[in-house]
Each structure stands twice: as C-alpha cells, then as structure tokens.
C-alpha cells in the first residue's frame, strides 16, 4: 500500500506529461467533422478543393485562413464579406478540441499530428506524394476515400497508382 500510492501518482504524472506532449499540442480534433454541416462552407470551399473538416485546425488558424482568402495559397479565393463571416463562424465553432498549442499554422499539413502520421514513420514513400493522382498532401481524398465526410479511418485508405 505504501508503494502503490507513489507508483500510481508517478503513472498519472507520466500519462499527463505524454498526453500534453502528444504532437506538441498540435492535435486534430475528435471528431474532426461536426454533425452540423454549413451549406455555404460546403459549397464555397468545395468549389476548388475538398471542404476540409473544421476539426483539422485550431480556431486561430481558421481565422487567419479566412482573413487572407484574397491570397489563398497563391490563388485569389476571395468571398463576399457576409459569406466569409458565416463560414468563419462555422469553422471557429467546431475547431480542433485537442489542440493545446498556441501555434496556428495556415496549412493543415503543417500541424504536428499531420506530419507525425504522414511523414515520420516512413510508411509512405516520398514518390507517392508526387503521383498525378495524389499531387499534394493537401488532397486528402486522393487516399482517404471517406475524407469528405470526415472519415480518416485507416481501413478506408486506398493509395492510388
């Protein structure tokens, strides 16, 4: 009994530390896709690319993305102010609920959780990203067949030729 309490405490501290250190606090939310779907978010974002689920970034990132749509990764994706406001409200209502870091990357692929899952384990050959069918790590749905519904389950990954 004497030993159990410090041991338990040590385990708790260790768990807490690991949990906090996970992806340096840059973790996507769970779930990544809320049940509420905003029609404008869907229509406008998916006008050019997959409508990325709000839980993939923290609110601070979404605010930056939405404030810079006229220079959106090299493209003018500007929106009328009322539409931009509605979409910003939706994205910042359901941001990642596991993101504790103050880092607010513009790119989903710059998040620590993304890099850990896609680049660090050597599971995906660098050549795969260059395939015409994949083109960029931003094209989630090239491999994650359920990405547009917020389904990133490993079972539903099909890496195209």
């Amino acid at each position, binding site marked *: 009994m004497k030993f159990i309490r410090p041991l338990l405490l040590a385990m708790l501290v260790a768990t807490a530390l690991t949990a906090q250190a996970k992806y340096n606090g840059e973790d996507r939310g769970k779930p990544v896709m809320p049940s509420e779907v905003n029609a404008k978010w869907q229509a406008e974002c998916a006008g*050019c*690319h*997959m409508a990325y689920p709000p839980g993939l970034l923290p609110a601070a990132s979404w605010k930056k993305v939405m404030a810079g749509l*006229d220079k959106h*990764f*090299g*493209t*003018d*994706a*500007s*929106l*009328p102010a009322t539409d931009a406001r509605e979409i910003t409200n939706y994205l910042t209502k359901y941001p990642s609920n596991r993101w504790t870091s103050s880092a607010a990357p513009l790119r989903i692929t710059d998040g620590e959780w993304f890099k850990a899952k896609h680049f660090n384990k050597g599971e995906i050959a660098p050549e795969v990203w260059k395939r015409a*069918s994949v*083109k*960029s790590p*931003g*094209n989630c749905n*090239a491999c994650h067949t359920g990405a547009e519904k917020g389904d990133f389950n490993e079972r539903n990954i099909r890496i195209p030729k």
Partner: protein
Amino acid sequence: MKFTLHTAAVLTSLAIALPLAAAANPILDGYKAEIKGTFTVAAGEKLYKTVGPNQLSCASCHTDSPKNVGKHAKTNKTIEPLAPSVNAKRFTDAANVEKWFKRNCNDALGRACTTQEKGDFMTYVLSVK
C-alpha cells in the same frame, strides 16, 4: 391561303427569334448596358487564351475549349464545363459570375478584368456550341 401565309410568317419569325432568345443572357446584357459598347467572340477567345504573369490562362484549368470538363491546376478538382451549351447552369447567377471573374482575372491576368473584357469573354463562351 391567307391563313397559311400567316402561319409561315409566324414560323419564320420564330425561327429567327429562337436562336436569339437562346443566346440572350441577362448578365451579358447587364455588361452591355453598363458600358454601352459591343462585344466580340474574337476578343473573348483571345482573352481566354492569354497567358498572364503567373503563367496561367483561362485555358490552364478550363482546357482549350470551354465545352470540356476541366481540372484545377493545383488541387485536381474537376471543373464542370464553362459553356452553357453543355452546362446550362453557367452564367445564370450574376453574383457567382462576378465572384469568379474577380478571382480568376486576378489569378490569370494579375489584375481585375474590365467590363469590356467580361463581356467579350462571355460572348465567346456563349458562342461555343
């Protein structure tokens, strides 16, 4: 006889009016009214193929013909045909048309398009059958 002539006259005027009606577009009419000018297919086609400072043209994503299904140069996203002759939804919503002119003129030409250019562009795209 009188009746037949009359019918023929009606049919003839219909035959003339119908293609005009099909080509008419309220958004294009709006541009026309705005600058009180005229637009040409040739100028629109030239604009469609103009490569701007970012090495991009309309054709980069919309392909050589507005009738074709295009592909986003960066995201691989399918782009439905621009020509209303094959995609009736195009050029039916003025706000949407303005939104895309603003974005795409900036991307392809590095600047906003003039009303003259928008009108020429639409005249060309609407002419593609």
